[in-house]
C-alpha cells in the first residue's frame, strides 16, 4: 500500500514566543546567582542558608553512574533563573497578553472554563497566573505557588519543606534545593475533601533555562486532594534541563492523587525526584505520563510509613527517536499491612529506549505487606528497545511480592482483524496502541485524557508503514 511518509518527530508545541523576561540569571551556576535568586524573592535567611548548603551538597555529589546517559548535560550551559514579569496575576485579565497567547495555544482557558477548581500556570520560573475556587478557600485549603507559600505560610512551610526529600537525597534534588523557583504548594485541612482536581500547567520558555520547580503537598488527616500537573515545552536546539522536586505528605487516613502528563521537547533532560510519605491508612496514588524528552529519569516513590498505608503508581512512558525513558517507581514498605501496586506501561518506537527501573522494599516491620508490580511494554519496531530492572529488598518473611512483565509487538493477527473491518493500517495500529495505554488514560480527568490521546496519536504518526 503506497503511503505518504509523514514528517517524523516534529514537535507539535514547538512554538516560541517573543517574550521579554525582566531578569535572567545568565548561564552557569555560582553562589552569587543563588544569593541573587534568594534576594529577588526577598526570602528569609533560613531559606538562603538552605539554598547555599544545597549548592555545596550539589557540588560535592558525583553525577549518577546508573540510569541514562548524562554525558552531554553541561551545568555551565544552563540558565538557572528567569522571571517573566514583576507582577503575579490573580485573574485572567491581569495576565500579560503574550503569555496569554502561549496559554491560548495550549488550550488553557477552555480547560479552565470547564471544571477547573484552580489554575496555577507556571510560565518560565514564576507562577504568573493563579486562581482558585472560592469554596476551596473557604474550606481552608491553601493552593498557591511555592514562593508565595514561603512568604504567607512560613511556619507550615518551614516545618515540612525539604523533610521528605532532603537536599542530600541525590544530586538533582540538591540542585533543585539550591535554585528552586515556583511550583505548587497545597495544604488540605483535616477532613476536607476537594471534590474537583487542583491543576497547574507548566511550561518552559527560555532557551537553556532550567526549570526547577518545587512542589509541596500536605494532606492533613482524613482529607482528599487530586492535583493535576501537565507540561508542554517548546522545541529548542540546545539541551534544556528540567529538574523538579515534589514532596507529599499524606497524614492518617488522607488520600492524595497526583497526576502528571509531561510532554517534553526531545532535547530536554527531565530529572525529577518525587516522593510521598503515607501515614496510617493513608493512600498515595501517582499517575505519571512521560512523553518526549531526551532523557527522563523519574521514579515516583511512596514511603508506606503507617500501618495499612497504600501506595500506587500508574505510569506510561513513550520513547521515540534518540529518546530514553528511564522511569519506574519505588515502594518502601516500613509498616505492617501496607500494600502497593505498580502498573508501568511503556512504548518504544523509532529506536527509542524504555527502561523500567523499580524498587520494592520491605523493612523488618512490614509484616503482612503486599506489593504487586506489572510492567507491559509495546515495542513498535526492531530498532527500539526495552529493559525491565526490578530491585527487591526483603527484610521480613511474611510479605507477598508479585511481579509480572510482558513485552509485546503489535500483532499481525490484530492488525489483520481491524483492517478487515475497514480501518487503515495506521488507524488500526493507533487503535491497538490506544488500547494498550487505556488503563492509564481512563484514570485521567476527562480533558487530560483527551489531551493525552491527542499527544499519543501525534507521537504515533509515522510509526508504521
Amino acid at each position, binding site marked *: *500500500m503506497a503511503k505518504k511518509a509523514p514528517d517524523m518527530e516534529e514537535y507539535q508545541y514547538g512554538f516560541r514566543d517573543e517574550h521579554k523576561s525582566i531578569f535572567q540569571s545568565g548561564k552557569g551556576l555560582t553562589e552569587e546567582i543563588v544569593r541573587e535568586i534568594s534576594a529577588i524573592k526577598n526570602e528569609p535567611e533560613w531559606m538562603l542558608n538552605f539554598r547555599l548548603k544545597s549548592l555545596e551538597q550539589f557540588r560535592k555529589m558525583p553525577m549518577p553512574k546508573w540510569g541514562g546517559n548524562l554525558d552531554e548535560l553541561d551545568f555551565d550551559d544552563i540558565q538557572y533563573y528567569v522571571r517573566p514579569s514583576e507582577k503575579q496575576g490573580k485573574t485572567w485579565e491581569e495576565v500579560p497578553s503574550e503569555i496569554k497567547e502561549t496559554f491560548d495555544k495550549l488550550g488553557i482557558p477552555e480547560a479552565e472554563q470547564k471544571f477547573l477548581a484552580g489554575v496555577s500556570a507556571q510560565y518560565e520560573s514564576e507562577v504568573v497566573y493563579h486562581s482558585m475556587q472560592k469554596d476551596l478557600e473557604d474550606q481552608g485549603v491553601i493552593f498557591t505557588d511555592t514562593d508565595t507559600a514561603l512568604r504567607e505560610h512560613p511556619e507550615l512551610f518551614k516545618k515540612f519543606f525539604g523533610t521528605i526529600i532532603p537536599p542530600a537525597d541525590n544530586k538533582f534534588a540538591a540542585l533543585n534545593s539550591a535554585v528552586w523557583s515556583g511550583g505548587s504548594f497545597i495544604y488540605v485541612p483535616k477532613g476536607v475533601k476537594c471534590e474537583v482536581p487542583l491543576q497547574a500547567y507548566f511550561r518552559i520558555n527560555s532557551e537553556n533555562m532550567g526549570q526547577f520547580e518545587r512542589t509541596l503537598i500536605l494532606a492533613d488527616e482524613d482529607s482528599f486532594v487530586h492535583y493535576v500537573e501537565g507540561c508542554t515545552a517548546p522545541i529548542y536546539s540546545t539541551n534544556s534541563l528540567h529538574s523538579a522536586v515534589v514532596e507529599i505528605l499524606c497524614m492518617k487516613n488522607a488520600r492524595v492523587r497526583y497526576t502528571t502528563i509531561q510532554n517534553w521537547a526531545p532535547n530536554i533532560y527531565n530529572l525529577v525526584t518525587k516522593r510521598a510519605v503515607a501515614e496510617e491508612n493513608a493512600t498515595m496514588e501517582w499517575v505519571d505520563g512521560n512523553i518526549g524528552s531526551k532523557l527522563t529519569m523519574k521514579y515516583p516513590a511512596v514511603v508506606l510509613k503507617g500501618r495499612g498505608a497504600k501506595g500506587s503508581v500508574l505510569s506510561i512512558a513513550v520513547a521515540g527517536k534518540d529518546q530514553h525513558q528511564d522511569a519506574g517507581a519505588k515502594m518502601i514498605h516500613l509498616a505492617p499491612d501496607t500494600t502497593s501496586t505498580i502498573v508501568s506501561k511503556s512504548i518504544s518506537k523509532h529506536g527509542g529506549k524504555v527502561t523500567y527501573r523499580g524498587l520494592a522494599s520491605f523493612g523488618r516491620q512490614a509484616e503482612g505487606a503486599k506489593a504487586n508490580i506489572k510492567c507491559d511494554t509495546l515495542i513498535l519496531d526492531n530498532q527500539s528497545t526495552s529493559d525491565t530492572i526490578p530491585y527487591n529488598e526483603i527484610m521480613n518473611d511474611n510479605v507477598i511480592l508479585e511481579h509480572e512483565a510482558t513485552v509485546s509487538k503489535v500483532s499481525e493477527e490484530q492488525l489483520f482483524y481491524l483492517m*478487515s*473491518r475497514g480501518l487503515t493500517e495506521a488507524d*488500526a495500529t493507533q487503535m491497538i496502541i*490506544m488500547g494498550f495505554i487505556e488503563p492509564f488514560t481512563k484514570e485521567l480527568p476527562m480533558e487530560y485524557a483527551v489531551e493525552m490521546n491527542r499527544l499519543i496519536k501525534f507521537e504515533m504518526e509515522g510509526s508504521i508503514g
Partner: protein
Amino acid sequence: MAADFVIEGLKATIEGKEILKGINLQMKGGEIHAIMGPNGTGKSTLASALMGHPKYEVTEGTAVLDGEDLLEMAVDERARAGLFLAMQYPSEIAGVTNSDFLRSAINSRREEGNEISLIRFIRQMEAKMKELEMNPEFLHRYLNEGFSGGEKKRNEILQMMMLDPKIVILDEIDSGLDIDALKIVAEGVNSMRSPERGFLVITHYQRLLNYIKPDFVHVMMQGRIVKSGGPELAERLEAEGYEWVKEELGIEDETVGQEA
C-alpha cells in the same frame, strides 16, 4: 445494485506450500453459497486469502467484486470495497471498546466530516444487539476480550450487520455454538439477506444449512472445488458423509498441504 463476485483460478500458498490450487466461483447478490468439506481441504484458507491475511500469498488468479480485483488491494481497501469476513478465531484487543471500534470501522467508510452521529450509532448498535440477544454491556466491553466462543461469533455477526457489506464470508461461524446460539446467529444472517448481498458460508456440517438455506453447495477437497450442486448436495453429504464424493472422483487423501 446486486453484487457480482467472480473468483477465477485463485492459487495461494503458505510458507511456500500451495494450499489453494485454482478456485473458480461465481456469486451474485441475493445468493447464498455454501462451501463444505472435511478438515484440511483449504476452506478457511480460501476465506483468509480472499480477505488478504498476510500469512497467505496469492500466486495466481483474480477475485473481482463489481469490476474491481480485490486481490490488488490492501486488506482495509477490500473491506471498504464491500467484503466482510466473519472469522473463525476473532482477535482480542484490550483497551478498545466494542463500540469505539465499530464506530471507527463505520466511519472508515465515510468521508471526513460525514461521520455517523454518536446517538444514531448507539441506537443502531443497541437495536442490532437486541436482535442477537446480546447483553447491552457488550457495547462497552473490550473487543472480544474475555468473550466466550459463542459471544465472539455473535459479535462477528453484529459487525456484519453494522457494516452492511456486499459479500459476506462466514468462516465456520457455527463452530463452538450450541443450538440456541446457532439459531440466533442464523436469524441474524437471514435478516441480512437481500437481493444485493451475497453470502459465502464455509462449514463442516450441514446443521448450519438447516437454518441458513443455501442456493448453491460446493465441496472442497485438495484445495479445489471438486463438486457443486444445489441444497440437495448438502443433504446427501449430511446423510452419507464425504466418502462417496472421494470414491466418485478417485480421491484418496482429500487434504492439502499437510505432511503425510
